[in-house]
């Protein structure tokens, strides 16, 4: 007889796909941020002599149509995409979770009010909201960040509220309350262990869709404007040179593919 008999079985260790996802993400982060440490070519420096030159021993990624270093542009674009996506996810997650807990705890008018606001944000497809916000103040990455965060917070709020409501009514929370533990203890001890796995999943999917949205807006030329390196904008820039330099077009595609794939692998729920 041991106490472990009563503990529900939990998966030990991290699932393989999550490890693969984390490994790809780590490699991408290294690629994106290493030039900041070691110093590398300037992503904006043009040199038409090198235009569309293929990969070589000195420059593994070759050059784009204006002779700018593809490596420098890719890592700068990665910093922008990953940075903006992670920032929006965190900005959405914190108020989303806090409002969700507050709504589940208080119920009543507060719950209905925040619930109503979240309905309003869910009524429109997310990209439409982001598009209209970028129309208010064009050429501004701040609006992109604001729009994506406004789209993402709803999911955290609704899932947190749905998870927290039955937990707060459970006998164990009641017992903690009767023993005199404060709200902070209840959140940390009873709610957080249940919320954390959901946050990982929703967070990585949210980051993936944020990256897709940034690239889509860059691609239709309403997002980040040239010459700022951005993956979607790079693709539309390099598309006319597809015949001469397929490597240049394929690189941003491969980068965005790896980035979204990594986030999806991290977020994927374990199932049979």
């Amino acid at each position, binding site marked *: 007889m041991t106490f472990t008999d009563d503990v529900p079985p939990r998966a030990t260790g991290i699932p393989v796909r999550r490890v693969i996802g984390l490994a790809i993400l780590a490699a991408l982060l290294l690629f994106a941020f290493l030039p900041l440490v070691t110093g590398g070519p300037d992503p904006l420096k043009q040199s038409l002599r090198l235009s569309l030159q293929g990969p070589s021993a000195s420059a593994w990624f070759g050059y784009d149509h204006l002779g700018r270093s593809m490596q420098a542009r890719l890592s700068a674009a990665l910093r922008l995409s990953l940075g903006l996506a992670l920032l929006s996810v965190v900005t959405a997650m914190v108020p989303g979770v806090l409002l969700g807990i507050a709504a589940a705890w208080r119920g009543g008018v507060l719950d209905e009010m925040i619930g109503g606001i979240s*309905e*309003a*944000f869910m*009524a*429109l*497809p*997310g*990209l*439409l*909201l982001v*598009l*209209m*916000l*970028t*129309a*208010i*103040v*064009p050429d501004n990455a701040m609006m992109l960040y604001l729009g994506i965060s406004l789209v993402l917070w709803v999911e955290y709020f609704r899932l947190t509220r749905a998870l927290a409501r039955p937990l707060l009514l459970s006998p164990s929370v009641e017992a903690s309350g009767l023993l005199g533990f404060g709200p902070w203890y209840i959140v940390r001890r009873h709610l957080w262990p249940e919320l954390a796995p959901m946050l990982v999943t929703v967070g990585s999917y949210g980051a*993936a869709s944020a990256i*897709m*949205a940034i*690239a*889509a807006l860059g*691609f*239709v*030329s*309403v997002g980040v404007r040239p010459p700022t390196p951005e993956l*979607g904008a790079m*693709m539309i820039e390099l*598309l006319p040179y*597809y015949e001469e330099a397929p490597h240049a077009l394929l690189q941003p*595609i491969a980068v*965005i*593919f790896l980035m*979204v*794939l990594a986030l*999806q692998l991290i977020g994927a729920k374990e199932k049979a």
Partner: protein
Amino acid sequence: MTRVILGRLVQASLVALMVGLLTFVMTRSLPGDMAYRIAAGRYGYDIVDSAAAAKVAAELNIDQPALVALGHWMFDLVRFDFGTSLISGLPVIEEIASQLGHTLKLAFAAIVLSLLIGPPLGILAGLRPGGVLDRGLVVLSTSVRALPQFVVGLGLIIIFSLTFKLVPAAGHDHGAHLFLPALTLALGLAAVSNRVARDAMRSVSETSFYAFGRTKGLGEWQVFRRHGLRNVAVPIITYLGVQFVYLIEGVVVVETLFAWPGIGHALVHAIFGRDVPMIQGAALIMGLMFVALNALVDALSHVIDPRERRS
């Protein structure tokens, strides 16, 4: 059912509210003096002076408080009175009416195509979980979902139009032009719906009534048609509702990529030119289309699933 319809009506009014508020902020943040702009539009740029602008301001009540102006703005919106496009000069409602037809054609073709690709493959995979088809589909759908729609579209253009020269890459003259944009959207939708169909088929084929159907001697096709099809269809249809977000967002990108003259294309161009009446009309109609498609899914699942009706 009435509750579901009521919910959709509330959603539709929320769409109008959001679009109205956002475009109102957009007009207020436009640079320049509103009275001067309108006066210039009326009398021509050369003969506008401060007297003309003051007359316009007095006549149109331009100096009214923001809240009153917002009230008028929303009232115009719910009457579908969008005004005229700042760029083409035509009434917005006329432009959007023709664009909506193109967009609906594209969306409809994409949904049908995705239903032809996704669920059948998913059902076959679900009948043999862990088989070659099942594992192949996991890899394929994960890859498609990790690519933005415009990359899928670009890939299709390169394969079908540039390499094999089978269908035109862009334009909208005849039916062949519909193929690539619809396929682009359909592949994205099918990448999710085949997984949903696979999971649904797997759980249905593990039930005792399915096993009993087999034991009493029904053929594989008969037992599927009698006991499987309806059960599998419910989650697929329900999931279509979730996917409409993807479809509407996809329409914006894919129409722009393939120069398809629909609402998404118009919206992107309106944003480019800061054509507020056009942005307002296009966004409102796209939002309402989203609500209407969802209402359609509600109705469909109501027809297919008798359990919903009883409760």
